[in-house]
């Protein structure tokens, strides 16, 4: 795992220089933070690199950190090298005032619906996506419900006390 971390880190540093921000070792897989605008190039580079060959997009998830000023949103891409069984996570962080992220649909066809899902629930705009519209929620919806400011319960209810139950 440590070897994988250093291998990917040195390759990303050599290729993107400042575009590579940091790396950490999680409980399970290494994680790399890169610049938001370079995400498509990074994913494409990892796909085409003969040694690393991360050619399988396992999943994608957006995370909302409302308290993290200037970096309210994170998008996580989990990649898998099936022949060597290596898994990594790539993360990008960005501000809620500018939620434009380059789409990676040109590299992975599977990213199409995954990105639509993140757009639907978090309002992340994926630039270059062929068909960016809501997927699970109805088209008439005016907000992005997975953002933390939308409480699960109706805020006007008084019969439920959250001091003991719930977050």
């Amino acid at each position, binding site marked *: 795992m440590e070897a994988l971390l250093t291998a990917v880190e040195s390759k990303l540093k050599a290729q993107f220089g400042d575009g590579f921000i940091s790396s950490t070792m999680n409980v399970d897989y290494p994680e790399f933070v890169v610049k938001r605008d370079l995400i498509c190039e990074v994913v494409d580079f990892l796909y085409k690199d003969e040694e690393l060959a991360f050619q399988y*997009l396992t999943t994608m998830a957006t995370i909302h950190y409302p308290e993290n000023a200037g970096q309210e949103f994170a998008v*996580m891409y989990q990649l898998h090298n099936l022949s060597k069984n290596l898994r990594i996570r790539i993360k990008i962080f960005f501000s809620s005032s500018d939620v434009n992220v380059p789409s990676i649909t040109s590299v992975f066809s599977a990213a199409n619906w995954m990105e639509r899902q993140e757009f639907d629930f978090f309002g992340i705009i994926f630039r270059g996506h062929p068909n960016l519209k809501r997927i699970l929620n109805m088209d008439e919806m005016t907000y992005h419900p*997975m953002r933390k400011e939308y409480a699960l319960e109706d805020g006007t209810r008084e019969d439920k006390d959250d001091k003991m139950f719930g977050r």
Partner: protein
Amino acid sequence: MSTKNKIEKVKTSNHSLSLGEGQGEAEYSTLNLGPTHPATHGIFQNVLKMDGEIIMDSESTVGYIHRAFEKLAERRPYYQITPITDRLNYCSSPINNMGWHMTVEKLLGVEIPKRVQYMRVIIMELARISDHVICNSVIGVDTGAMTGFLYIFQMRERIYDIYEELCGARLTTNIGRIGGLERDFTPKAWDLLDKFLIDFPPALKEFENLLMRNRIFMDRTINCGPISAERALNYSFSGPNLRAAGVDYDVRVMNPYCSYEEFDFIIPVGTQGDTYDRFMVRQQEMWESVKIIHQAIAKIKKEPEGIFHADVPEFFLPPKEEVYNNMEALIYHFKIVMGETEIPKGEVYHAVEGGNGEVGYYLISDGGRTPYRLHMRRPCFIYYQAYAEMIKGGFLSDAILTMSSMNVIAGELDA
């Protein structure tokens, strides 16, 4: 005179054969397949652009049974999320349950005793059989063979009887707990399992004999809705659908959990990625599952009896008698039920091989009583987007068959 005229005549008639070119706009009709149509086996819509019986283009609309599971999970203590996972792929709920338990156990760093792992393997393989039985028999129904479906469903019923004996529920099982299982297998459960293992192979063989080398079935399914291995990988296919295309990716082998590395089984793969290959891969996997269950039973016999959970009192509910008579047990009971257990901060991803492929949970904990963020990797959602590409240029009847052979489960699609 006559020869010249003849040639001209032939030319004219030849020309009239290729009617259509330059004869005005091609006419397409729009067909709504779904949202509620018996042939879709679930609630999702496909808007098809048809040229006669040929599909020129299609668009899939999903989300009709979206239930906001990821949002719900942000408000529930960890043990209350298990019933949510039941409702993903409801044909094999126990696998989803186990996947969730293992994700949390990975976060907590809980080591599960071998006997419990083997018991979980038995439950998961039974779930895989019940999942594949439904999918394969429904392929039969969609090709016009109702008989196999009706007979093999008795076997699924027998699996549900075993679930019922283990956890009290049949479809949405909520089986197992974080740290182990809620109770040991009862003697009746072992008995039902043994009887099932005796009766299932002949029934499966009978089902196989009906379809596997059946000329009508083969003509109907071979080359129906194929996908190449490259496209399947680019679409992040997983599970039987990917293996039918010829890629031997199985989470049980590549990232073993629950001691799968100790079991001897093969990963069946196809070559064409068409409906017949998907059918055959699932069929073979059922035989492998039977093999795995036999091995697991043999392994359990070698383990000390009576263990059904890890020794983690802070996460595993104590038995009721203990709660009433023992101070510590009462405290733990209260803390667990109120969601006051100490959950470490962290970020984990854990995947299991579900009925349809890699079921993964990406969990971020901030140390609170509920997950900060839970993302579920649902294989159906990911591979169903390839459907439009797979049915393009084919017949409508093939599209129906492609959908049922991909085993698209609305619950997993929409989350």
